[in-house]
């Protein structure tokens, strides 16, 4: 009998994603951001999280997905990597799911592009796939836009 793991889940469009629950600090509803000129496009802005300044990354842009439809406010999933909190902007938050290790599979070789290194693998749930993100890679965006 293998171990079960817990994932914090969310949606981008209708794709179902998960992040290990230990890496999620908190989920915060949408708030006004301060944009950062000259930053890479994936950086949407800075938010004030109880006095701490946190960079918000647009996960859609990070995964080369189409832009979020106008008028739909994203949700902040605040994750910790290297002890630094970063906010990931997602469309909608899901439940915390417990999944069995046996249902995990690495992505197929046909997965190419930036998503290749960002998606660690998938859990085969009954009715859908839960894509697991490699958090360290997702938050490692550096440098200026050009």
């Amino acid at each position, binding site marked *: 009998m293998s171990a079960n793991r817990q994932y914090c889940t969310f949606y981008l469009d209708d794709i179902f994603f998960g992040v290990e629950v230990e890496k999620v600090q908190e989920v915060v509803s949408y708030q006004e951001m*301060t944009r*950062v000129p000259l*930053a890479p496009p994936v950086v949407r802005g800075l938010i004030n999280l109880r006095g701490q*300044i946190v960079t918000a990354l647009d996960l859609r842009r990070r995964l080369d997905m189409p832009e979020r439809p106008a008028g739909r406010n994203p949700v902040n999933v605040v994750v910790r990597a290297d002890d630094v909190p970063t906010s990931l902007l997602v469309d909608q938050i899901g439940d915390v799911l417990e999944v069995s290790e046996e249902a995990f599979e690495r992505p197929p070789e046909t997965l190419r592009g930036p998503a290749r290194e960002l998606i660690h693998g998938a859990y085969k749930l009954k009715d859908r796939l839960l894509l697991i993100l490699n958090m360290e890679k997702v938050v490692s*965006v*550096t440098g200026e836009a050009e």
Partner: protein
Amino acid sequence: MDDQDDIVREFLVESYENLDQLDCDLVSLEKNPRDRERLASVFRAIHTIKGTCGFLAFPKLEAVAHAGESLLSRLRDGQLLLNAEITSGLLALVDAVRSILKNIENDRQEGRGDYAAVVVRMMQLRDGPCEAPAALPTPVPEEPLAHDGQTVGVADANIRVDVGLLDKLVNLVGELVLARNQVLQFTATRRDPAFLHTTQRLNQITTELQEGVMKTRMQPIGNILNKFPRQVRDLAVSCGKQVLLTVEGEETELDKTLLEAIKDPLTHLVRNAVDHGIESPEERRAAGKPPEGRLSLHAFHEGGQVVIEIADDGRGIDPERIRNKALERGLITRDQAGRMVERELLQLIFLPGFSTAEKVTNVSGRGVGMDVVKTNIERIGGAVDVVSRPGQGATVKIKIPLTLAIIPALIVTSGGDRYAIPQVNLLELVRLDGEKAKRGFEHIHGVPVYRLRGKLLPLVFLHKELRVEPATPVSEGGPLHVAVLQAGDRPFGLMVEAINDTEEIVVKPLSKHLKGIPLFAGATIMGDGRVSLILDVLGLAQRAGVVSEVRARKPAEPPALAVNSRPVQVLVLFRFGDGRRMAVPLSLLTRLEEFPSAAVEKTASQEVVQYGEQILPLVRLEQVFPSATGETLAASDSVQVLVFSAHGRSIGLVVGRILDIVETADDMQLGTRREGIFGSVVLQQRVTDLLDVRAVLRAADPTFFEQPVAQWAGERPA
């Protein structure tokens, strides 16, 4: 004697700490008597005490510690095994040491106690499996306590704190400062006196707390200066020179992060002084100087900053050599070279690519040098200056702020967002209205410039550098706002959409995602809770090309040489409340007066003083700006009053303290107009609010100015 006291105090603190540790160690050793490491640590602790008290001449303590040490050495070497009896003996030893230390702490004497029994017991334990006396009484003699328990022991007066915890406290205080700012903004809209009073208290306490917490991060500069004697000695030997180094002001305190930031620049300057400044003994003798060169490092506080002077009595800096070198390197033109005075020439050594060292030594002179020193010092908001007396030596003066965590900043708007500009980079604010705005710009081959007091100031548009769309299109004739900033030696004008206000901001670092953008130095949280970016003025200037090329960094001519073609306005500068600076034009004033507080009388609704034949009504600024803490009547025994007259009537404005009378160009205005404030300018490097005298006086006496009086140059008639 003080030094001796300090040493003893340090010894006591250290020993108490060691003893507390010993208690724990001994008890755990009893359970695990073969723990070699712990035994060694116990041995070391007692050994240290023995060593130090021999040095400080405490013979009794030394004897006791020595006895303990010899027992412990046998235990450590495994010749004896710790048992309960030995443990008790050692604990008794610890108690004896503690009691002697207590005596030393109280009156610098070891006390009259007799500790021979402890020594004997140690010997017996050491010498073997003993038929020890069945029950030795605890041989610590009880001396009557010389002092009652109220004096705080030295060990209790100091505690060690984790730096991480201090950083956290600094952050929390930062949050508190922000919250305080929010409350104060809110206060400005309220008239409830009880609430105002409470927020004033909150304001004061926050300020004091901020100062207190900042102090905890302060470290004496001696921590780095004390490394120089050795370095200088080694350097002098390797250069074949004789150098006597004197260090003064090691106790001067500085924020920990700043201390680390100045370490390298200081090292560089000291090396320079030894390598290039001080001559070889032969050369010195030939010049009639003592063969031994003198180098002094002197740190002290001056005007809220820390100043460090590195002075040598060497050959000084030869301005002619600099002139030639700069010409040779193409840093200046022949024409410029001819016009430059000595002071300007000296500034050339801070240009990149300048090095006068004739031979490249392994010590200094690789072409990287003073420009790096200057850049590093400026990055932390400091300044470097050099003074040379050829043949007699050179002095480099570094000025740095005390702390970086909380800084005053100017808030500006661009593209609808607010940005903070550290005030150390700010020279002045210029506002151009109407005709002036139209005539304001000129272009040199497409590059916008502005004539500031007859000199061309390159203009940089903030929204263009940030590549954002301006929220309000810059319209013809609309007011233009220019913040005149200094990056390196080069002033430039930053065009922004609006100049908001000044605020104390808490500097927070940016995440690694944004570290690569040279335009931002950090971020901060504003009074309304939103995040704003802090501009890195040097990075901005480099990006805009103001200081990018070597050739562009021609030293600016000293302001005294600037042609002052514009008319000047004379301002009376005064302080109001807790440090806020304000100014009014001298031309509006009739007189400056000082009255004893006792002369102030009260009529039904007004304070007045008898003024010649008249009764002079007084208006207090606190009535106009209730949110600022006014200097109350009770606080000082006299009041300073600005007297204004119109149509034969006078009115007195009570201000905090008159500071100075300054001249300023009449077109260098302004920040945002607020109630009672016409705008803000930078005077004497401080942001100063220009009081809207007419509005203030009219509020007090609506009929005072019956005819409009031109108040501020540039103000359009109401």
